[in-house]
């Protein structure tokens, strides 16, 4: 697979480390009343779709940036690659 890095252009997927579903960006509020349930779901439950999947890849052998890659889990086709920083900010995470 080739991941089209937003800053570096097309790079071999072997340069990256895979973490998992990009929902991991949305860390629950630890002070909320139902925090224990929310963290169980956050840590252990996954949508695991057959089809479009947003996922986190880390460019370990490159610029060490985290990417959100939108990839089809049936065809392996990659349709969108964004910097995870931009995605997190757009969702109101980070600063």
């Amino acid at each position, binding site marked *: 697979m080739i991941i089209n890095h937003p800053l570096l252009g097309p790079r071999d*997927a072997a340069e990256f480390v*895979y973490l998992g579903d990009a929902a991991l960006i949305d860390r629950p509020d630890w002070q909320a009343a139902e925090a224990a*349930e929310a963290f169980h779901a956050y*840590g*252990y439950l*996954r949508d695991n779709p057959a089809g479009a*999947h947003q*996922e986190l890849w880390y460019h370990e052998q490159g610029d060490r940036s985290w990417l959100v890659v939108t990839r089809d*889990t049936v065809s392996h086709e990659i349709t969108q690659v964004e910097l995870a920083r931009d995605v997190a900010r757009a969702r109101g995470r980070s600063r």
Partner: protein
Amino acid sequence: MRYSAFKILREGLTGNKGWTPVWRDPDPKPEYDIVIIGGGGHGLATAYYLAKEFGLRNIAVLEKGWIGSGNVGRNTTIIRSNYMLPGNEPFYEMSLKLWEGLEQDFNYNAMVSQRSILNLFHSDAQRDAFVRRANAMFLAGADAELADADQLRAELPFLDFDNARFPIKGGLFQRRGGTVRHDAVAWGYARGAGSRGVDIIQNCEVTGFDIENGKCRGVETTRGAIRARKVAVCVAGSSGRVMALAGMRLPIESHVLQAFVTEGLKPVLPGVITFGAGHFYVSQSDKGGLVFGGDIDGYNSYAQRGNLPVVEDVAEGGMAIMPMIGRARLLRSWGGIMDMSMDGSPFIDRTHIDGLYFNGGWCYGGFKATPASGLCYAHLLAKDAPHPVATEMRLDRFARGHLIDEKGMGNQPNLH
């Protein structure tokens, strides 16, 4: 029909006209006591043990394609019980004991061959870890045998003992481990279940569940609605997809694992050998091909094919322990979809929906578990209580903090 050497002789002399189909091909009935979704090894084994051990006959096994078309026909056929944790080891040891009596039990030649499995170690620390594992195996009644490098040099002279990076210091044998003819396992269980009245319904895809007021009352399929008192999902690899139809999220990611086979060679490998410093395992089939595999590709996938970097990685693992493998030409490679669970261990459990049961999360170790998985799942379905060796394989173990994490990797499915 009972198979025997006498039967083969008689059919051979009378033109082989007396053989009958190995299982029936019925149309689905509108209602069953138990519907099992998934006609793979585990689903067919579950139906077989429900009929044989628990006397339940009004059962259907629904299969989307043809039986055995999934992972039971795609694995590297290894059986073993060299696990460590108490939630796992008694279960896998029971499975190995069932393998040992399986062919007599279901009267079918599954070519169970206890040709041994050897896990190599490459450092003192790894030897210590293997000694600990061997002791855990003894506690569950399994066999284990530590071998030093001298013993291995005599037994397996072709290994690269003096590898500069990962010298081989010895290995842990389980002599009762080995290989099995994987398709024959599906066929044997199908025959055993079918002859006891279980309906095996192929080309029948489940498209939805009939759930009302928190109770599952049946399934919708491409061949019509089927009502059932109990619905047993057994579709490892596709668990995420099927359970999504019931609105459930699982502690599972689907990943692709590749496997490889070379051209046929003269006998070179006496048993199964695994690399201790990377991920590589190899055995030789009775046809002579070297059958081997390694790591999963490492990203979510429902495609039954993998990518080239892992092919290279697996080949490097092979070259690191037995350089002679470099002279063999690769004949085929293929991929299968694994239910990679959050702690690397499986589930055999009820769900929060009444009448809906779940079996899955086998990671890439489901084949060796087939008999015990079938027996334990049948026990759960028949008695609504877990089998004593499968009490920890619960869906809620993460919420309770009782993980069964053999490798100590945490909730990172692609590392188990």
